[in-house]
């Protein structure tokens, strides 16, 4: 067991290193000169050269890579070319929006998806089940950005109930903050809810047929008690696994949704930095996102191994 975890941690570290290398190599070939972007039209050549040296762009690539690795190990970030401030601060303020947004979206997905999956499973092949399955199919097929546009048109522009976008921070209070994240979280959370509804439904169906449920039923336990105590508990494992895997999708989806709702989150930071050739910001932000995905996958794997030690032989 211990050697298994040692191996997993080694693999985890190697994956992170490979991801870092991939990001660095990819960014090395980006066209566009950050120095020129900073100075803009009509920049002087001497000034450009000086600024390039200032930004460290004149050093060989491998040296810059090892410098960066060193920074990563010390959890330090570079300085944004565009804003001339440490990327760490930009990422932190971006996370302050994207984090709550992702949590909110997951919350919506859970609150909608799990009960719907339960309904479908307990009413198998009845209208309720069909209704939920149709919702799930539609929810997975509708592009989240189109859904976002429709939501803005309806709730913000036509009805005026909710802000069309922007985020004023939590200092205005919890409810206003929640309000401005509601539409983005809904457009991110609904497709997730659709997936969760399907996963919950099949997990619950599987457990409903399991021996321990039959035993409990034979012992005369009430259906609601069986559903709450046994089935939901057993079904929670595949649901949590899927949610872990969906984190990557959620982070990617936030790029599109943050653009529509002009939320100053990680997605917007990344998109803007990419178009402004702010290589340092792109590099560190992508690294954070990728590291988060790898870490979550690692945790999910480790959890699965702890709960069920069987697949230890091979990952």
């Amino acid at each position, binding site marked *: 067991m211990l050697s298994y975890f040692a191996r997993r941690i080694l693999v985890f570290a190697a994956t992170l290193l490979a991801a870092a290398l991939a990001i660095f190599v990819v960014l090395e070939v980006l066209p566009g000169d950050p120095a020129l972007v900073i100075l803009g039209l009509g920049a002087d050549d001497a000034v450009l050269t000086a600024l390039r040296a200032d930004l460290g762009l004149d050093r060989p690539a491998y040296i810059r890579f090892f410098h960066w690795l060193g920074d990563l190990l010390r959890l330090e970030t570079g300085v944004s070319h565009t804003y001339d401030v440490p990327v760490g601060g930009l990422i932190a303020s971006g996370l302050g929006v994207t984090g709550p947004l992702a949590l909110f979206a997951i919350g919506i997905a859970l609150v909608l998806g799990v009960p719907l999956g339960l309904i479908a499973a307990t009413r198998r092949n009845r209208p309720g089940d069909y209704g939920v399955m149709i919702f799930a199919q539609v929810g997975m097929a509708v592009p989240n950005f189109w859904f976002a546009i429709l939501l803005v048109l309806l709730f913000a522009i036509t009805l005026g109930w909710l802000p069309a976008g922007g985020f004023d921070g939590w200092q205005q209070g919890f409810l206003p903050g929640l309000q401005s994240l509601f539409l983005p979280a809904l457009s991110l959370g609904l497709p997730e809810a659709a997936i969760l509804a399907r996963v919950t439904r099949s997990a619950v169906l599987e457990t409903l047929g399991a021996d321990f449920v039959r035993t409990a039923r034979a012992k005369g336990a009430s259906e609601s008690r069986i559903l709450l105590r046994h089935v939901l508990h057993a079904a929670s494992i595949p649901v949590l696994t899927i949610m872990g895997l969906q984190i990557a999708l959620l982070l990617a989806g936030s790029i*599109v949704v943050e653009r529509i709702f002009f939320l100053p989150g990680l997605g917007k930071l990344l998109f803007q930095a990419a178009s402004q050739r702010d290589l340092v910001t792109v590099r560190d932000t992508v690294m954070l996102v990728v590291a988060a995905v790898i870490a979550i996958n690692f945790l999910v794997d480790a959890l699965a191994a702890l709960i069920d030690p069987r697949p230890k032989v091979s990952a």
Partner: protein
Amino acid sequence: MTVSRNFIIGLGLTATLVTIAVLSLIWTPYDPEVIGGSLRAGPSWSHWLGTDWAGRDVASRLMTGARTSIGVGVVAVAIGMIAGVGLGVIAAAHRNWVDDVGMRAADVVFAFPAIISALLITTIFGPGAINAIIAIGIFNIPVFARVSRNAALTVWAHDYVLAGLAMGKGRLRLTVDHILPNIAPPLIVQATIQFGLAILAEAALSFLGVGVQPPAPSWGQMLFDSQTMMAIAPWLAIFPGLAIAFAVLGFNLLGDGLRDMLDPRL
């Protein structure tokens, strides 16, 4: 083997999509790229789905856009399948360093959310349909590598395959003879689902402005164009969105139906 309802609906939707795309090769109501005429006109008898900001016929553009979506799906899935299945079956056949390195590499690629890697690729090599397709295709590689490796491992455990190995048949030979035919069903299911995802991803990238470039029509890009015209020309936002949703729905249902029929265990 019973034909599932999902399969029938899915087949209907995807067949319609393919028919429209093929039809657009020989006929569209108007030339989808010719500008002028009545700008931003609502749906009417002459323009069933209206015209866009430059006076181009929306129905014709949606038809040509179907071709774009299908093209992206085919190429992206082909890239993912060829590279991913190759990697997967070789890894499963040898279970040595190729397996380790290949699967770890797949993990690394998998850690890059599709849109983020597509964004990186298109910022480097410039926005465009080809680069978007490659980006989506690369994202498909680890998906197919995992599915094919896992399926192949199950087949490798069968006695007749092991017997073949004992009789001195080569691993490559066995892979071609026994593994590939037997892992086809889950791969076909996965390919159908990835097809729908590829259509969604292309729409998202074109919506962000890094996918298919104008004047070539793409549903995502039509949605991008329509955003600020929702109030004066809502049809521009409604129809492309519906088209994407129906296409993806079709492939998802087809995949579900195929799974029910080919691989009831899953």
